């Protein structure tokens, strides 16, 4: 009998501690959730957004919209000049050499061209594949029309691949290709 | 006669044997240094005072480090055993003649402190101290110890392009124009003294002839390089250079005869020596071909240094044991 009491005590104590901890964590998590998201956007995507939508006068992180297309949620950053939106940017993903990479694509709303491309996160080999994050590669996307073939030249496209990093270059192009068709829908929703 | 009445009491007592071959550790070290002297003269005649400066600074800082550390560790000071001198000389040999003095001092100090004394001083080092020092230099100041950059300010009658860099960058066709005999005679960029391939080889053969080192490690090293390079070369001779090229360029000779044969960081059993040397050669070529870094010798030797205690477990059967058990 004594044994059973001990077992029950063990179960009760461990469960209680776990429960208290679980509820505590849930509370703290709920409390910090919003701020963490903001921090993440600010630190992970913030620098890229600022670079792509350079010239905007508003707070890019604050002026973001969540838009759902085909049940998928996109966070769209809107760049404004003198209060009027001139560009937007959102993130899509592609597959590089080391795995998934997140690519942010910026669009010029006025000319309907690409305002720029930036890689927000990647797992490419440092010094080799990671060279796709450098400006010399990403700037080749700038000002391209939406109908351009976003493939590397070896695959019949218009983009110069980084030497020795064909797979990574392909990954970026794939992300852009995936992102461009969404533009019109997103534009509509943003300007609504 | 009871011991109280015995006359001669002050005789020397020692265990057998009562004679010795006559060699000593410092003798071996100085033989190493003598074997390197021709290359020292070569280096000074080619690079002038710069080579002399590098060698002098290197030796001085290695010996000073040894002295200071032994004092600090309260160990008997043994800088006259020639080991620190040899370490300094070897460090100078693998650095280009243009390196700044502070780089040599840092390298030598690290070599002696972390490479040698931390492991227990003479006989304790698992890695070749100089190579350990060299690695930290390479991590920190790769441009300074780049052989091509180092040779730019000298008027030399050969290309300042480091052959292995050329091979890495432009493929085997770019190095096929090189005269191997020329490279072998020392007309290539490289370390202050290490580029004198022929003289290093002569020094190494001298060491073997004097019985200071065994032939097993150096020759199995060269065999390892040749064999591995041959495999690649036979597979695709347009892409990979031939084995002879791999042997005559880039520190293979000094690595085989002077670095891989370091007593404390190489195996002592005969079979293990052969495997060790061959492994060094294998990894030298693999590092050269498969890694970004064109120079594989030092990393290969350091890598095999890790394996040597394991290799030393390969020991021959005891003949008496076989006899008794049979």
């Amino acid at each position, binding site marked *: 009998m004594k044994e059973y009491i001990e077992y029950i005590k063990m179960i009760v104590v461990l469960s209680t501690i776990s429960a208290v901890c679980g509820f505590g964590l849930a509370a703290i998590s709920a409390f910090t959730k919003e701020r963490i998201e903001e921090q993440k956007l600010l630190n992970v995507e913030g620098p890229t957004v600022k670079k792509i939508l350079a010239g905007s006068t508003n707070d890019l992180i604050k002026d973001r919209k969540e838009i759902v297309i085909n049940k998928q949620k996109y966070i769209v950053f809107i760049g404004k000049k003198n209060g009027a939106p001139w560009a937007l940017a959102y993130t899509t993903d592609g597959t590089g050499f080391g795995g998934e990479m997140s690519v942010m694509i910026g669009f010029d709303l006025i000319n309907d061209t690409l305002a720029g491309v930036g890689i927000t996160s990647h797992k490419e080999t440092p010094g080799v594949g990671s060279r796709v994050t450098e400006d010399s590669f990403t700037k080749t996307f700038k000002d391209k029309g939406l109908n351009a073939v976003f493939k590397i030249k070896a695959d019949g496209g218009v983009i110069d691949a980084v030497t020795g990093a064909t797979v990574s270059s392909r990954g970026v192009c794939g992300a852009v290709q995936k992102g461009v068709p969404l533009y019109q829908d997103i534009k509509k929703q943003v300007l609504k | *006669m*009871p*011991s109280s009445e*015995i*006359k*001669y*009491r*002050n*005789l*020397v*007592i*020692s*265990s*057998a*044997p*009562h*004679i*010795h*071959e006559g*060699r*000593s*550790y410092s003798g*071996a070290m100085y033989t190493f240094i003598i074997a390197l002297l021709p290359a020292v003269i070569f280096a000074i005649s080619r690079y002038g005072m710069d080579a002399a400066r590098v060698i002098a600074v290197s030796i001085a800082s290695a010996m000073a480090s040894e002295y200071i550390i032994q004092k600090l560790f309260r160990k008997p000071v043994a800088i006259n055993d020639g080991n620190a001198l040899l370490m300094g000389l070897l460090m100078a040999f693998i650095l280009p003649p243009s390196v700044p003095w502070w780089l040599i001092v840092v390298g030598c100090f690290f070599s002696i402190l972390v490479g040698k004394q931390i492991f*227990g*001083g*003479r*006989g*304790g080092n698992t890695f070749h101290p100089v190579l350990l020092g060299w690695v930290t230099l390479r991590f920190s100041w790769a441009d300074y110890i780049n052989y091509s950059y180092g040779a730019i300010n000298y008027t030399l009658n050969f290309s300042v392009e480091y052959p292995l860099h050329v091979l890495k960058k432009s493929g085997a066709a770019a190095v096929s124009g090189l005269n191997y005999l020329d490279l072998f005679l020392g007309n290539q960029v490289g370390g202050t003294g290490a580029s004198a391939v022929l003289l290093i080889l002569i020094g190494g053969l001298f060491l073997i002839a004097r019985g200071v080192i*065994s032939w097993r490690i150096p020759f199995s090293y060269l065999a390892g390089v040749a064999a591995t390079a041959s495999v690649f070369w036979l597979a695709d001779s347009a892409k990979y250079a031939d084995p002879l090229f791999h042997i005559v360029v880039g520190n293979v000779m000094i690595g085989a005869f002077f670095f891989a044969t370091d*007593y*404390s960081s*190489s*195996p*002592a*059993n*005969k079979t293990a*020596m052969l495997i060790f040397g061959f492994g060094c050669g294998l990894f030298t070529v693999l590092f050269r071909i498969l890694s970004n870094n064109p120079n594989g010798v030092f990393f290969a030797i350091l890598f095999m240094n890790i394996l040597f205690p394991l290799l030393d477990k390969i*020991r*021959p*059967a*005891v*003949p*008496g*044991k076989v*006899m008794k058990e*049979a």
Partner: protein
Amino acid sequence: MDVSLPKQSVLLIKKSANGEGMPALSSGESIKTGGKISDAEGKLLAYSPVTGTVAEIYNLPRVDGDFTAVDVNTSENDVWDENCRGIDNYFDREPGALVSLLCDSGFALDIRKDERPDAVILNCLESDLLVSINRNVLAEYGDTIRRGLRLLKRISGSDIVIIAVPGDLRDFAEKVAVDGSERIAVVDLLKPLYPFGMKEIIPRALSRKGIRRPLVITPEYLNSIIVFLEHGSPPVHKFITLIDRNNVRINMKVRIGTPISHILREGNIKISELDKLVLGGTMRGKSSFHAEFPVTADIDAIMVQDRDAVVTLGNEACVNCGKCIGVCPNKLQPHLLARYSEFSLFERCRDYDIDYCIECGLCAYVCTSRRALVHYIVFAKKELAKMAKEGDHAIESDNIGEGLACHPVK
């Protein structure tokens, strides 16, 4: 050169492990040549090599153990002990009985019933560097040795008898090998290299291969067995090589029990402070801390080394150069054995086959760091033996006698 009989001889009697072995003697008692001077049996049995009166009995430590020493004032005329009688028709006796009789009398012959030797090897190579006694032994005892070989051939049951000699002793060996028209042994010429003369190594040096369990015996020991069987007491003389500080060698025939100081005087060698006096050859001899030790049957040479020639072997760190591995005749790793011993890892020494070390001394001879490798190894062996004893697994030493004319030690 024959060394004269000294005025006073010293007889050494080895003490047994438990300290027994005091002789059945007292001061003033007179002893006769060939008489037993200890009560013990087997290996500890000792016979007197001289006639005289006992002057003093005391303990004498030697490097290899404790001994009881008996000082005897010798008389010029040898009187043989009346109990000293040979064994009639010993040649026709049953082999097993003969072997056990020899064992009981202090001789050790490694012949076991269950495991017969597959060859008899007469080892005429010198036991150590600079030793050169076998020429004299073969010259003087040739006939006895021939009889001995016949006996050994009979009691060992082996057809193969090999006389292993260096080239320059070939003629002596041929004489020993042939008895009238019958050839009793084959002569195998070996290079006089060290350590071929050690019983563990010599089977491998022979031109005949495949000998697994030989009976190896030196000519002097064989002679002493026959002398004992024929006369009831082992020989009273021993051949030694006296080596002076310039490595000049004199071969001497010495009465066992003669103090070394007496021999040095006769050989005209002075010894002074900080010199080294070695009992045995250069590679395996044991240094002695004074010159009053007597010649015993296990000493083949006496060497005096000048103070300037003394080699200092120490405990500098091993640098792993591998020289010792290259020279070890048993392919051991002396550097590892010494290191394990230095740090008291004796069990590891056993894993690395320390039991197969024959203490030839070659590793320490070539050691780059001049480490006292043999010293470390011997130390580890002793510690292991002690541990085995403490653990109550006392191992019978199968290292029984070889090479010693059995008188009076062993």
